[in-house]
């Protein structure tokens, strides 16, 4: 088959010693910037663009691919070990991953993230090579009504995971939705809830809120309790995955990939939606759902796979339509243009060598990442042996630096502290944290899509159920709400209560 021949040729290019070296530099840099909150892969690629101009196209694209995949992986390390998600796509990883790390299972958590990222990256990259045109067609059939149905599904499945106090879960969600209203409205351009403060015109930055609620809130909570209840056990048992870990991880990897790849390919999808959906799927399918909220490995394996699969998914609209859907993809587009390539419907036909070289280099970068990160797991988990006061002051330092790095303003820093206090309050009174961030991410997306749908239909609400895709998504959402009610009625409420308990 022609595709295989081209891919093999691409692999030969990617496996040249010099190109392997570029891949290694790329994944090392990518992992490093992924670990630091605030400095993302987009910025790194942008900084390297002028440097790579002197390299040959293949070499530099291979390095970009390494940075891209490395950054996606590096973000999960801080999420798991320090409960500090550096980017919105690794927020879900912090939920179970950090619980695992505190119970001495940081090693297996990092390992399942690494292997899961590898597996997802591998499958999604192969998917990119073979089904890109089909996937892009599907992604384009998503109109405002379908996106709105997808958001409803995400809301419902995530809120089903809010635990036994629906009231507390919904309270947290509505705090997030309220925060999401702040800023200039896209459809009309009116400023909402900005109170004349220019800093609020562009809305609240998701990473600022996430870092504040998770990291700053936690540091305050640890300080307030004088370390009483939050002792961290650095290492318990093996730092590697046990046979049980493997058998519990492989299915979530595959499911996460299946969820993440198509969502990444959607022009208005966003990696975080895939991770939310994957988390709720794993929670519903888990053999030991009672472990969720206390460090269930499925809750790390699934979302991490979804995260990386959506990174590959992002390349689908970039390569087939010339449509960059993330900041990193936009800079990679600039990288293409630097070498006189115009991604678009004709790229596969006009520059097959480069496209296949890039796809092959993604495979190589993925492998490099595994080789680089698995031996490092043992080193990373040692971080947790640092005494608590030092560890948390370090976390605060990184959280502050990351926020200033991403958005250098004192107001932003003030917001970080204010939301940190909010995070402490929520923790202190037993409210879940994640729904606040979910509300901030999904709320504005759902609102825009709903208003676009209704504008296109001239106010006719039946447009929301006019297509099979929208109907299926809404039915799934209804099931996500009704199934727990049904189970509860059948006397399994106890299990569900445990399942959702203590989630933050």
């Amino acid at each position, binding site marked *: 088959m022609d595709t295989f021949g081209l891919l093999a040729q691409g692999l030969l290019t990617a496996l040249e010693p010099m190109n392997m070296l570029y891949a290694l530099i790329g994944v090392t840099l990518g992992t490093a910037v992924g670990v630091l909150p605030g400095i993302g892969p987009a910025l790194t690629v942008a900084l390297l663009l*002028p440097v790579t101009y002197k390299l040959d196209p293949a070499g530099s694209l291979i390095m970009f691919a390494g940075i891209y995949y490395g950054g996606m992986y590096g973000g999960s390390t801080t999420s798991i070990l320090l409960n500090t998600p550096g980017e919105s796509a690794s927020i879900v990883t912090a939920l179970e991953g950090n619980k695992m790390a505190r119970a001495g299972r940081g090693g297996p958590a990092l390992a399942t993230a690494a292997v899961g990222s590898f597996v997802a990256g591998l499958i999604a990259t192969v998917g990119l090579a073979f089904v890109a045109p089909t996937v892009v067609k599907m992604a384009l059939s998503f109109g*405002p009504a379908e996106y709105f149905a997808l958001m409803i599904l995400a809301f419902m499945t995530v809120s089903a995971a809010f635990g036994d106090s629906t009231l507390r879960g919904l309270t947290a969600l509505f705090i997030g939705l309220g925060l999401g209203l702040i800023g200039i409205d*896209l459809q*009309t*351009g*009116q400023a909402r809830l900005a109170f004349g403060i220019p800093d609020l*015109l562009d809305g609240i930055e998701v990473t600022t809120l996430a870092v504040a609620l998770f990291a700053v809130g936690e540091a305050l909570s640890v300080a307030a309790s004088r370390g009483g209840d939050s002792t961290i056990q650095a290492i318990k048992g093996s730092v590697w995955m046990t046979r049980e870990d493997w058998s519990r991880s492989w299915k979530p990897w595959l499911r996460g990939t299946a969820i993440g790849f198509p969502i990444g390919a959607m022009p208005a999808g966003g990696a975080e939606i895939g991770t939310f959906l994957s988390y709720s799927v794993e929670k519903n399918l888990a053999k030991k759902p009672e472990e969720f909220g206390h460090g269930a490995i499925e809750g790390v394996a699934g979302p991490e796979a979804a995260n990386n699969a959506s990174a590959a998914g992002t390349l689908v609209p970039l390569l087939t339509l010339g449509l960059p859907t993330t900041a990193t993809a936009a800079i990679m587009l600039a990288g293409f*243009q630097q070498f006189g390539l115009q991604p678009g419907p004709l790229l596969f036909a006009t520059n097959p060598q480069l496209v296949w070289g890039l796809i092959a280099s993604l495979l190589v970068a993925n492998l490099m990442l595994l080789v680089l990160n698995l031996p490092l797991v043992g080193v990373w988990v040692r971080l947790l042996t640092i005494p608590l006061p030092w560890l948390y002051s370090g976390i605060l330092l990184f959280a502050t630096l990351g926020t200033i790095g991403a958005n250098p303003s004192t107001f932003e820093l003030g917001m970080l502290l204010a939301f940190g206090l909010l995070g402490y309050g929520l923790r202190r009174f037993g409210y879940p944290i994640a729904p606040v961030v979910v509300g901030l991410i999904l709320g504005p997306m759902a609102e825009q899509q709903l208003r676009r749908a209704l504008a296109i239909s001239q106010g006719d609400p039946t447009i929301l159920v006019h297509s099979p895709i929208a109907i299926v998504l809404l039915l799934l959402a209804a099931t996500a709400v009704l199934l727990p009610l049904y189970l509860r009625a059948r006397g399994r409420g106890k299990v569900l209560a445990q399942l959702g308990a203590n989630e933050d």
Partner: protein
Amino acid sequence: MKQFVLASIIAGALALPAAAADYKIMAPAAPGGGWDQTARSMQTALQDEKISSSVQVNNVPGAGGTIGLAQFVNQANGDPAQLIVGGYVMVGAILTNASPVTLDQVTPIARLTGEYEALVVPAASDIKDMAGLVAKLKADPGSVSWGGGSAGGTDHITAGLIAKAAGVDPTKVNYIAYSGGGEALAAILGGQVTVGISGYGEFAEQIKAGTLRIIGISSDAKVEGIDAPTFKEGGVDVSIQNWRMVAAAPGISAEQKAAVLADVEKMVTSASWTKILADKGWANTYLAGDDFAAQLKKDTEATSAILKDIGLVK
């Protein structure tokens, strides 16, 4: 003497990176759109021509660039290394949105390029030409949804002007705002909206590949290399050009402004820039300094009138 030589070498080494200013350009729109492409083209040209050793581009999308503009005015104050790309869309958006931040708060440097608006439909659409669109519009204006950039921008204004010229109430135009050309392109390709309206460059690759059909271009006369009738040839008396500019931060000194002007002038006259304009199909409408500031003022007044006329601003 030795120390002096050493000191001057060190001083020279330290001064060298300072001479090549590192610019940070804000594209106040989502990646893939016209401003994003302008910012990234500037990045390429400034670096290729060694005018600046490193240029960074960051995207702050939303509300016709007013979100990015607000952030820029707010954060770049007095920093000569920061630039913002903008254009005609921003002039309209500031008026429609009654934005608290305006272009008076930045330092205009130069108008760089102009681009004509293209009116497209998906290849499978039953609309074949401008006459077909006008017929549909006359039958039921609301049934034609227009996908384009943010509310009150050139795309929105052009849609209103076409309706008005066709004898349809421009306030009835069913316009769907997207945060950038890239996002709008996906909606047009997916057939989510009836017609797409945006700069020609945003659709060029798709038109070449045959996935979009161009039914009109907003120029006065046929443009070389673009195989499409003008709006006027299609029977709709509308011509409009979407220009793009670069501005510097508020509160910079006259010398700092002159330095930025000199760098931009060097860039605009370079071979790299000429090649980029040719590749992207952008017309060079370079106008710098005070001349540009005066033109900007005139455009703002004219836009305000047009927007009131078509009912976008009360």
